[in-house]
């Protein structure tokens, strides 16, 4: 049957099972929006800026495990998605971005609202397409969804000139794709798997280091089985939060720059680092030469380019985390391996007891940001919830104090560190998990980067709960100025009263309250969480609080500023109690 390219695009989305798209129309998109108007399956969420559409699709994908979809117009619309695409690329999130393009016969002439979006997004997409002919649309869209969601997931962009949308195609949606240059490896090499299992079986001080790859491959169950079988301590990166239950006794916190001291000590002392779905990011490793320098390293990742990129590896295993862990488990069970980590646990428990995360509570008159996070966590712990964060100090406090228990219930911009991510991502998360309570932890700087999306939430009835940390600073940058630039707060001071966030939220029809003392906090949070629609609780938190502990930029991770004095590990091992454990 001959249909238009625009109709084919909508039919293809329906065939992919797409039910929600985040978009913003424009002149060259008119044929597509006209076709979309007839779809009974697809709900279009009209954002207020295309960056918001990309972040919303990203948040949607993170919580649902499905591929997020964006539609943006040519030129500025397409360019506005770039930050969102880069964010999804860095965190390996599957989204497909459709951009309108000027007519093929004027491409390359600097036509009105033309920009070379495929050229611009080559470095930040897994792949992209310019579809010159309507006949190619079905196959391209099939490939786009396949590439975005398989292997190491990531964003794919499909640029659709208006002439393609208006062109005609004999529509038949392909059942499968065949790409000569794209065949991800899912099964780990049997010999390597066996070697990894042997190392795990004999290690005395092993550590399981997991990241976003565990979530995207759905390997949480296998991680838990492996950890429990061999009694392995587990550390999860910012991207890996939720891949292992953080209230589990085997969980030893988040590693790296703002990780707990005991976590970083464990990494420094481990004799076998089993890294799964992680990429040894600089915010995790600090100085590479001293990161897990006593350990043999097993690295499991679906992307061969990640293996050995930053840290030399003893046992590289390219494959899907779930498959590989299942194979390692099978090897361990077959050989009747038993845990040998009792002494190691004594050391870790001792560190955990002596160097917990810690902050000064004050005299009860000042709202401490860490306390706000603890209350948000406590008040929502029993509910089906998703915690979304923006980027900055509040993000690190949330990472430290929110106990994430299940996969896909933590949404945070990791690799790119995109301020302004959280509000649109929360809207996407709520669209992807309508039954969950979606709490967005956000700073005053971050919120102002994308706050127009408050209108999106209100007009679509997508309820998100914002907990705003207002300290009147661009806090994380100010923290570095405080520590490393002589407290010269250049460009980091924000007026705490402008805008009036409560009035602003109310202007969008939201429930809103301001809290400046600890005793009013629970009530305000409770009312916000129970409110029918979107809500904002503005917390006037201690202005100059710092995120601690903290690894000196470029320093070894066992030498941390702040918190309870301790470290480096080389000196601590002279400690009598530790000696006893090892002897």
């Amino acid at each position, binding site marked *: 049957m001959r249909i238009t390219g625009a109709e084919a695009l909508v039919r293809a989305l329906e065939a992919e099972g797409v039910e929600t798209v985040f978009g913003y129309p424009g002149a060259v998109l008119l044929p597509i929006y006209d076709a979309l108007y007839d779809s009974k399956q697809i709900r279009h969420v009209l954002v207020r800026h295309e960056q918001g559409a990309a972040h919303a699709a990203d948040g949607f994908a993170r919580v649902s495990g499905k591929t997020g979809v964006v539609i943006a117009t040519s030129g500025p619309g397409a360019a506005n998605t770039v930050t969102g695409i880069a964010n999804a690329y860095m965190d390996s999130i599957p989204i497909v971005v459709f951009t309108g393009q000027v007519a093929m016969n004027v491409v390359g002439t600097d036509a009105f609202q033309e920009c070379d979006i495929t050229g611009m997004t080559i470095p930040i997409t897994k792949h992209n397409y310019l579809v010159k002919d309507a006949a190619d649309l079905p196959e391209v869209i099939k490939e786009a969804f396949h*590439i975005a969601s398989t292997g190491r997931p990531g964003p794919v962009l499909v640029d659709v000139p208006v002439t393609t949308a208006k062109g005609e195609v004999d529509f038949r949606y392909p059942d499968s794709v065949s790409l*000569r*240059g794209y065949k991800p490896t899912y099964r780990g090499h049997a010999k390597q798997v066996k070697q990894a299992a042997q190392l795990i079986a004999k290690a005395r001080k092993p550590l399981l280091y997991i990241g976003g790859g565990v979530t995207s491959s759905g390997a949480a169950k296998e991680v838990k089985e492996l950890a429990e079988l061999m009694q392995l301590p587990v550390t999860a990166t910012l991207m890996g939060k939720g891949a292992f239950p953080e209230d589990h006794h085997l969980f030893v916190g988040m590693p790296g720059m703002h990780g707990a001291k005991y976590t970083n000590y464990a990494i420094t002392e481990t004799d076998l680092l089993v890294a799964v779905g992680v990429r040894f990011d600089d915010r995790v490793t600090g100085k590479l030469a001293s990161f897990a320098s006593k350990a043999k390293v097993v690295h499991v990742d679906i992307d061969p380019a990640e293996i*050995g*990129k930053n840290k030399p590896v003893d046992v590289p295993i390219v494959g899907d985390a779930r498959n590989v862990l299942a194979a390692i488990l099978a090897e361990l069970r077959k050989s009747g391996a038993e845990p040998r980590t009792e002494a190691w646990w004594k050391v870790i428990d001792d560190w955990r007891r002596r160097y917990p995360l810690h902050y000064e509570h004050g005299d009860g008159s000042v709202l401490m940001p860490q306390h706000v996070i603890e209350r948000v966590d406590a008040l929502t712990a029993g509910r089906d919830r998703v915690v979304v964060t923006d980027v900055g100090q509040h993000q690190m406090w949330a990472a430290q104090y929110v106990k994430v228990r299940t996969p896909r219930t933590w949404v945070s911009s990791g690799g790119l560190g995109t301020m302004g991510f959280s509000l649109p991502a929360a809207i996407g998360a709520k669209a992807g998990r309508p039954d969950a309570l979606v709490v967005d932890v956000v700073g005053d700087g971050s919120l102002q980067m994308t706050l127009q999306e408050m209108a999106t939430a209100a007009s679509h009835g997508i309820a998100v709960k914002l907990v705003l940390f207002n300290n009147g600073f661009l806090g994380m940058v100010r923290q570095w100025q405080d520590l490393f630039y002589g407290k010269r707060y250049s460009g980091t001071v924000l007026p705490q009263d402008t805008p009036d966030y409560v009035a602003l939220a109310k202007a969008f029809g939201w429930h809103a309250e301001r809290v400046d003392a600890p005793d009013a906090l629970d009530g305000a949070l409770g009312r916000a969480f129970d409110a029918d629609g979107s809500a904002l609780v503005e917390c006037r938190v201690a202005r100059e609080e710092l995120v601690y502990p903290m690894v000196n930029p470029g320093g070894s991770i066992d030498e941390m500023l702040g918190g309870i004095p301790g470290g480096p590990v080389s000196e601590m091992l002279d400690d009598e109690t530790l000696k006893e454990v090892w002897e």
Partner: protein
Amino acid sequence: MQHTLSVLVENKPGVLTRVTSLFARRGFNIDSLAVGPTEDPTLSRITIVVNAENTPLEQVTKQLHKLINVIKVQDLDPGEMVDRELVLFKVNAPPERRHEIIEVANVFRGKIVDVGKNSLTIEATGAGDKLAAMEDLFRAYGIKEIARTGKIALSRGLREQ
């Protein structure tokens, strides 16, 4: 260290940009680049010469593999490849020195492809050292212009059964 990469790609628009921009993005300077179709019309071969240490280069070849349009990447072993480049030299050649220049060209099996009033254009093919030696000798007469194709290479048939 100089590496010769032979990259087999799908013959589609924009693929060359994807490949070369990857080198720029990762901070590598491409010394020479040659592209052309292969025995299979749907595929092209890109031969890239790049100066790099082994470890960072391995990262680039892995990243090349990740490009959807890239089918195969080989870092050719200098001892197990044949490589050639074609160069055109336009050399200053007043009538009284033409013979000398032609002689030099003949020694290297170069071909005179154009004769002007005051210049000769010589076509030469070969591996890098031979062409460098020719260039060196022609420099004495004054080289007006040089155009080169960039190196192309294939692995030797040593391991064929």
